[in-house]
Structure formats: C-alpha cells, structure tokens
C-alpha cells in the first residue's frame, strides 16, 4: 500500500470547517484520550457519519492506536462508518412501539422504498434505521424523519410522510 503524505485527503484540509470543529473540540478536551467518545460525537455531527480518513486523523491527534478508535466506534450503535443518507428515517422499535405495531411501519417502508433497517437507497437520498427506544412511548408507534418526530404513526401515512421530506420518489 502506498504511504500517504497526509492523513487527510487532498480535498479535506485542516481548514475544512468540519475538521475545524473537531480541532476545536480536541482543544477543549485538552487532547485527552479519554474524551475519545466526545470527539467522535463531534466528528459525526460534522460529517453525518465517521469517514475512515477522519478516524485516522483523530487517531493521530489523540496519539492512540487505531485499534482503540476503531473498536470504540464499532462498539457503539450511535456511530456509523457509512453515510446515513441525505434524509434519514428512524423507526422506533422500543417495547411500546413494538406492542403498537412498529413492525407494520417497517414492512410498509420496505414495500414502498425497498429498504431494510441499516440500508441507504442507491441514490443516497434516504437511509432507514431503527432505534431501541426514543423515549416517546406515550406516542407509540413513533417514527423520526429528519429529526422530526411523528407520533402515533399509521402505516398508510408513512409513504407520503417520507416523500414530502425527500421531495421525490427514490
């Protein structure tokens, strides 16, 4: 494998606003390795997910082994190594939502958009994921489309709810 001059790609420099956010966080946490998870949160907020070159960058800045960063990232559900899609649809599968039929919502999404949880559409427009519980149990079944919580979701409304967000058919 060819050795890279810079950990970051040519199109991603230390002046990139997203990298700057990570650098600010690193500084705030005094480059302490124990702040790794906090820094990963910042990185994921900036990039939407955790690209490999960004992980390599964090590894270098924190002076920790790559295995430490990679094993931490893959341990926690919250962190994603893949793009989650331009628009995200999150279906809560907590107990209350389960009892009230979250499965039907997932089935409907699969039927309409050919997506299973964890998948992103081919054009990267829509990503589908599930949550263990978003704590909106009083409103079960709940679904979150682009940070907007939908309460008491009915399977028949799902299609239009998503289409209105992504603008067009995926």
């Amino acid at each position: 494998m060819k050795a890279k001059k810079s950990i970051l790609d040519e199109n991603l420099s230390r002046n990139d606003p997203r990298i700057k956010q990570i650098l600010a966080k690193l500084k705030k946490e005094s480059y302490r390795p124990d702040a790794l998870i906090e820094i990963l949160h910042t990185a994921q907020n900036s990039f939407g997910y955790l690209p490999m070159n960004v992980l390599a960058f964090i590894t270098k800045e924190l002076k920790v082994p790559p295995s430490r960063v990679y094993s931490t990232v893959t341990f926690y559900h919250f962190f994603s190594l893949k793009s989650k899609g331009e628009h995200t649809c999150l279906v809560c599968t907590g107990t209350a939502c389960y009892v009230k039929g979250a499965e039907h919502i997932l089935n409907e999404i699969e039927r309409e958009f050919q997506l299973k949880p964890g998948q992103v559409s081919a054009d990267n427009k829509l990503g589908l994921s599930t949550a263990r519980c978003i704590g909106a149990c009083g409103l079960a079944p709940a679904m979150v489309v682009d940070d907007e919580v939908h309460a008491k979701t009915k399977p028949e409304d799902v299609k239009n709810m998503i289409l209105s967000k992504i603008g067009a058919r995926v």
Partner: protein
Amino acid sequence: MNRQDLKTIAESAKAEHNQFKHKVCVCCGAGCLSSGSEAVLKKLQDEVKARGLDKEIRVVPSGCMGPCNQGPLVKVMPEYAIYQKVNCENIAAVVQSQLVEKRPIEDLLLFADSRPKPYVNAQEDPFFKKQLKVVLKDCGSINPEIIEDYIVRDGYKALDKVLFQMSPEEVIAEIKHSRLRGRGGAGFPTGIKWETVYKYVADQKYVICNGDEGDPGAFMDRSVLEGNPHRVLEGMAIAGYAVGANKGYAYIRGEYPLAIKRFEAAIKSAKKLGLLGANILGSTFSFDIEIRIGAGAFVCGEETALIASIEGKRGTPRPRPPFPAESGLWGKPTLINNVETLASIAPIINKGGEWYSEIGTPKSAGTKVFALAGKINYSGLIEVPMGMSLREIVYDIGGGVPGGKEFKSAQTGGPSGGCIPKEHLDVKMDYENLVSLGSIMGSGGLIIMDDSSDMVDVARFFMEFCMDESCGKCVPCRVGTKMMYDLLTKICNRQGTRHDLDRLEELAVYVKEASLCGLGMSAPNPLLSTLRYYKNEYLAHIERNTTLEGVSHG
C-alpha cells in the same frame, strides 16, 4: 454569590411572578413537542401580547405534565385547568374564554373526549388525583431553562441547608433515614451506598449521574432531565458534598438531545450564579459537573461499563468487586446514582428523611415514577407512592385498556424484567413483590399489553434486544442469548418441539447464573416469566408445529 443572594433571587423572582394573575404553561416535553407544542407556545405568546395581556399573563414553556398522548397540553394556573390537543387554531378561543371571560371550554379540557364530564380543575381528575408527585413536583410547572423558576420553588434550598447546617455524616444519616432505594432498577439502599463511598479515603472521588436510560419503553429519566434539570444537578452537588467528591459526571443518552441541551443550560446558569464551581454559596465546598454523552449501548447502564464509557473506552463491564464505591472512575471511589434517585434528594433534605420514609411501603419507601405506555387509554408519565396496586395504575390512572379489549399483561423492568399477568393485577407495586412475581421494578417502564399480544413473541422481542446489546465479553451472555433467541424464533415460526422448550429452560438457568454482569444475569427474565404464566402459549405454538408431524422430541 452567597447565601443571602440566593434568598434575594428567590424573593425578587417571587415578587415578579406575583405581578401576574395567571401563569400559562405550555408543555414542551418530548411528547408534546412532537405534537407541535412549540408552535402553540409561539401563537399563545403572540395572542397574549396582541391583546395587551402580557402584564397579567405569564406564558411559560414547561417540562412534561404527564398525559403525553393528549398533547399538546396547555395548563392555566392558578385554576389548574389543562387543555388538551391544543393547536394554533383553537388557542385564541382558550385565551378569550378561559383567561378573559373565566369560562372554561369544556370540549377542549383534558380527557374531554373520553370522560363523561371533564374536570375543570385537572387535579381532581383520577389521572392526577391518585398520583403523588415528589420527583415530578415542579416538572410541568416551571421553565426548565430559567434557573430562577426553580429557585423560587425552593430550588437549591437543600444545597444551602447541607452546606451550612449539616455535616456530610448528617446528610448521609438523613438519606439512610429516608430509606430511599436506588431507582435505576436494583433498589440498593442509597444511604448505604453514599456511606460506603464516604468511608473510602482518597485524594479524588467522583459522583456520576446515570442518565443512560436504556430500557425500551422507559422515559422517566428523560422527562426529569428535560423538565427539571436543576433538581438533578442539586442532587448531584449534595451527593458530592456528602461523599467528599468535587467532580461529577452526568452520563446522558445520545438519543436524548433535548435532555442534553437543557442539562447543559442548567450547568451554565448554575455556574453563573455560583451554585456550581468553586466555593459554592461562599462555603468551602467546590463541585463541578461535566456531561458525557452516551453513544447507544444498553450495557452502559451497568455501572462498570458506564465508567469504561466515561473513560472513553468500549463500554464493557468488569467483574465486581472491587465495586465502584472503592475503585471506580480512573480507579477512584465513585458514587453512581440514577437520575430519579438524585432528583429525590432535595425534597428529602428539605422535608426530612422521616417524611419520605412514611410514603410507600415499609420496605420500599417513597414514590416511583412510571412511564405508562402500550395498550392503555391514558399513556404518559406518572408518579405514585410505592405499594399502589397495578390495578389502580392501569384502571384508575391509565383509564384501562382501549378498544374494549382485555388486559393481558403488564411488562415491567424492560429486557431485565418480566410480565405480570391478569391474575396478579392486585399486586402492590414495590421492589420485593415484583421480584416474587418473577419481574423487577426496573427503572420504571410499564408497558400494558392486551390479548392481541403473543407472549412467545414478546419473549423473543426482548431476547433479540439482549442478544444485540450483549457486549460480547463473556460467553454465557454472548452465546446464550443467541441460542435462546434462535430457539424462541423456531417456536414462534411453529417449528419448535418440546425438546426445544426444555433446552430453553436449561439455557435460561445457565445464562442467569454464569454471566458477568446484570445484562446477562437478567436477560432470561422475560423468557422465564412468560414461561411461568403463559406456558400454554408456548405449548400451543409447539402443537401447531408444521414440520415435525408426529414427532414429539426433536
């Protein structure tokens, strides 16, 4: 800021609030927000201003009021009239009728669509009447982002009291006297935990607030953190004083951005007033709090895993002893308490351990917050004295099961708990009684199921959860949950045999006995409790086996 300044703030805020004739709270808890309460708040503020009533009516965004599925909720004080499903179209009518003409609009009052006659004063409604709010007392009545709103309701009075009138030993004695037990699930006596940490001598100790509410079907901690973050913060500072720690961490789930935001704001405003930081209120006690955001691992609710996570590592548990009280965060003595436990501290200090210990049952004192959800008419957040019967919670507070269906089961304790069947509806809800029924109190998730729920599938649902969330460190949990899940799936798919059932029971015992931490030790609970009460459903699935006709043992 010193003690006198705190009193001055309380008095001036009180004088300011007293200038208003009404306080109108718009619920901005997670539930109501997603039903559109932010727009309602804005519209209400505009409406009040447009009518020139802004000198008489104070409009406040508040935390969760309780009946989450009736939202957005608007509460008019001092009448205690609660309006449900308020929207931008009918808010003007509420202002005109309720606030100007003093004539409540019955059709819009809480539960107007389901009760023969709604209560003008919501406190008289059985939903509220049967509750006793200690932890949630100010939740839904104050603006969680304004510290003065908390101070005016005796906020930080308990911290002031411990710092100037009590020794750490006296604080611990008071908590012991209250008989408060950990609200995170296990129910360990809080005072004894505090005393243990206090007794260890170390240059540095820590207090951790466990807000990694991972049970699916639970949103108590979320509502407390969102609705009254200062109460938790005050509890942490008091705990720090009592055990001799000057640094605290609040570990909050990443899935709760609003709770994180409000807790951050609370820390900032408390620091500004000198209620956090160096020499609190002019005393010699210093205490600081940092937030650590969870990254979605259920196992991090386990204390040693949580500590690993705060240290920035994979959240895997380690064997105990040593317990965190001796060797916790970075090897230092560490006190870990749940959000609800910490939110119970200030009232205990203010009113006395004696007062608290008289609420509830002899072994389980105080109140418990439950997140009531599932197949129930009035789902939401409730707080009741320990020892209230499940029947009262389901039928009197929760209004029973909708659609004329039968109550079948109540699930408590999430993936570590079990199901309580109909024949035990009269169980008095406390730690011991729930354990004797094969469930646990847990953190307070209470999911009601009707007869449409297949209990084998329920067991499979929880087993899938534990299998996914097993950290993989110990074999019994990592492999055992997977094997049990596969067997349960087989039975659900009508391919199971009697032999599979025996195997399941056997595995459940192994996993329970041999796992490293609470996750594995309690993972078989939903399976065991459904087997205990609904074995006929397992047998029915097996009898309808389509693959092994005539074969009884596979």
